[in-house]
């Protein structure tokens, strides 16, 4: 794409789409946090009849007129949704779906009529469905990008009240904050964000640009300012990619490409984000499973040595399997891991507890029996009902909780089955 960078119009359009995508994404954070994603989608679809009416009245594709039509239609859709929820027995989800389909259907009907009317200036009106950045004129870009800049400034100025209204509306009202004003402002900004994106992204996919960046950003951070920055970054990168494709293949609509790039970022976030991501959560689950397996093996060493009070006798895998149903494969894995840590020592055909391993096995059996005691004394479970619960909980109890347990139970020495609660001498 050597000529891309030499085309001043292309650069302007590129900067414009990047900016308006960032504006929509930043405003979208509050749409996302107020759980109004579907409402955003309904508004985005509902601006289509507004665009058509604006074209019919003005007879031009001047973006000022089209945006005006879009904003008015967007607001009407919000009011209609609100009216349906308040005045009928229909619930919010039904109202949203109803408004989306009726308004969008009306828009498609009008669009088709206009296209068959033989009006020469109508060509390209269908670009508003899926967007076509490459067809944007310099003046269009300035108007849409200018709107985005206004949205960004408004978000910065009203950041704190917006956050409070999104988090705890009732509290905001209780301190006398003009909540209706901030909600009106947020709704207007959402409609404006949608209206500014129509030519680049199109009405069908605009809601994705509003919501997806914030949803992806949420995966990486617990801080709202960083989440907003990330969402702007994600939207900007995607807009860049989508616009570039639009210039490379002019017949290709821009919206789907922007959303493709955005979806890749979102799916990546859902997968690999630390803590919240699926990969991180799976890793944590596997780590837990490994801990449970290894602790169960050490515990089995304790049980085997319990009768003769000689815990350090070497045991073979067969010995262990006789009193606990491990699968052979996981047992071997667990034994290998524990000897690597140093809790077990290889000894001829079998393994024996090291000093550290001995302390560990005592600790786990102790937690098991303390928890059985607790279930018996505090939850009044019968002694023959406490074992299974303790099998799971023994692995999660921290040293702090262990201390609490001991104190609350008065440092017991025997569990509900009259077995010793073991402490190292």
């Amino acid at each position, binding site marked *: 794409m050597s000529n891309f960078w030499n085309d001043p119009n292309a650069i302007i359009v590129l900067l414009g789409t990047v900016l308006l995508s960032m504006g929509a994404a930043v405003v979208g954070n509050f749409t996302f946090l107020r759980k109004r994603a579907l409402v955003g989608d309904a508004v985005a679809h509902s601006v289509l009849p507004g665009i058509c009416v604006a074209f019919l009245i003005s007879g031009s594709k001047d973006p000022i007129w089209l945006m005006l039509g879009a904003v008015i239609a967007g607001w009407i859709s919000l009011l209609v949704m609100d009216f349906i929820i308040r005045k009928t027995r229909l619930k919010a989800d039904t109202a949203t779906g109803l408004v989306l389909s009726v308004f969008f259907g009306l828009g498609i009907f009008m669009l088709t009529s206009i296209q068959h009317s033989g009006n020469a200036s109508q060509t390209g009106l269908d670009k508003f469905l899926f967007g076509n950045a490459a067809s944007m004129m310099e003046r269009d870009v300035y108007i849409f990008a200018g709107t985005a800049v206004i949205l960004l400034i408004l978000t910065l100025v*009203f950041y*704190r*009240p917006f956050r*409070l209204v999104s*988090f705890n509306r009732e509290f905001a009202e*209780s301190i*006398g904050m003009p909540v209706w004003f901030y909600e009106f402002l947020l709704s207007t900004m959402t409609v404006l964000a949608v209206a500014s994106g129509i030519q680049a992204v199109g009405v069908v996919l605009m809601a994705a640009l509003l919501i997806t960046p914030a949803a992806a950003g949420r995966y990486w951070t617990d801080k709202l300012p960083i989440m907003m920055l990330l969402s702007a970054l994600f939207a900007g990168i995607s807009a860049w990619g989508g616009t570039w494709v639009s210039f490379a293949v002019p017949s290709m609509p821009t919206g789907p490409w922007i959303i493709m790039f955005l979806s890749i970022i979102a799916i990546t976030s859902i997968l690999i984000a630390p803590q919240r991501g699926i990969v991180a959560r799976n890793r944590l689950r596997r780590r837990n499973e490994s801990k449970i397996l290894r602790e169960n093996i050490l515990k089995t060493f304790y049980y085997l040595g319990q009768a003769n009070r000689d815990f350090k006798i070497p045991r073979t895998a067969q010995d262990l399997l006789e009193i606990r149903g491990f699968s052979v494969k996981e047992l071997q894995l667990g034994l290998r891991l524990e000897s690597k840590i140093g809790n077990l020592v290889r000894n001829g055909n079998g393994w024996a507890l090291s000093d550290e391993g001995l302390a560990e096995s005592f600790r786990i059996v102790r937690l098991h029996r303390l928890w059985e005691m607790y279930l018996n004394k505090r939850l009044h479970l019968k002694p023959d009902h406490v074992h299974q619960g303790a099998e799971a909980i023994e692995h999660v109890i921290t040293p702090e909780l262990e201390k609490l347990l001991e104190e609350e139970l008065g440092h017991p020495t025997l569990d509900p089955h009259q077995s010793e609660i073991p402490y190292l001498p």
Partner: protein
Amino acid sequence: MKKEEKIALEAHNLTVSYGARPVLWDVDFELPEKKLIGVIGPNGSGKTTLLKTIMGLIEPLSGYVEIYNQNMDDVRNRVSYVPQRESVDWDFPASVLDVVMMGRYTKSGLFGRAGKDDRKMAMNALEQVGMAGFSNRQISKLSGGQQQRVFLARSLAQQADFYLMDEPFAGVDAASERAILDILTGMRDKGKTLLIVHHDLHTAAEFFDYIILLNTRLVAAGPTSEVLTTENLQLAYGAQLTVLSQVADLVKEKDFPVREKGLKDRQQ
């Protein structure tokens, strides 16, 4: 009411409906100041609605509320409201300090910009509820009791005179319950008035000086020992007012007004 006790709040003939069904009928009471006051009643008896109506979050069909003999809007900066813990999404991206700082909005500048003093007061409030070490903690990583304490700290940071709290003891462990009660009684001893919605009848006698017993209508209001009588409890929890409940259902079904228009209940 004794002469030296000033009235902190007067609720006059409040009738409120939620959706179409009336949930409070002609509730009328006065509250003395500098007391720890409990709002007690069975589920669905209108406790939360009463608090919201007092705060002006719900418009009553009839009646009015005065705090310190004034309209709520004129005394808002002296009143603090703690909504139910479940009323917010605790997965919201905010830290403990962020939430407590929300209590300083009224006092700080136009767009809620906070100053150094505000931050100090917020930290001070966190210290009072024993959460100073958690100021940077993400709110989704708090236990139920800790969430309640964060809400309490936000309320303390408001530095009000009159506090309305909706179930501050819900979902907390015994230790937190004790800690929260100590904070509330401490506030009362400093001359604050507290109106607390509480669901546990057994602890109510121990917690509160003064009690409003509610079940859609006001059953009783007064000092704890006078209100918590077997007879009153029977009235609130036992016998259903079958006719009242059927009338309420009918009002909802027929979409009938509970109050006729043009009837002014406030003589000024």
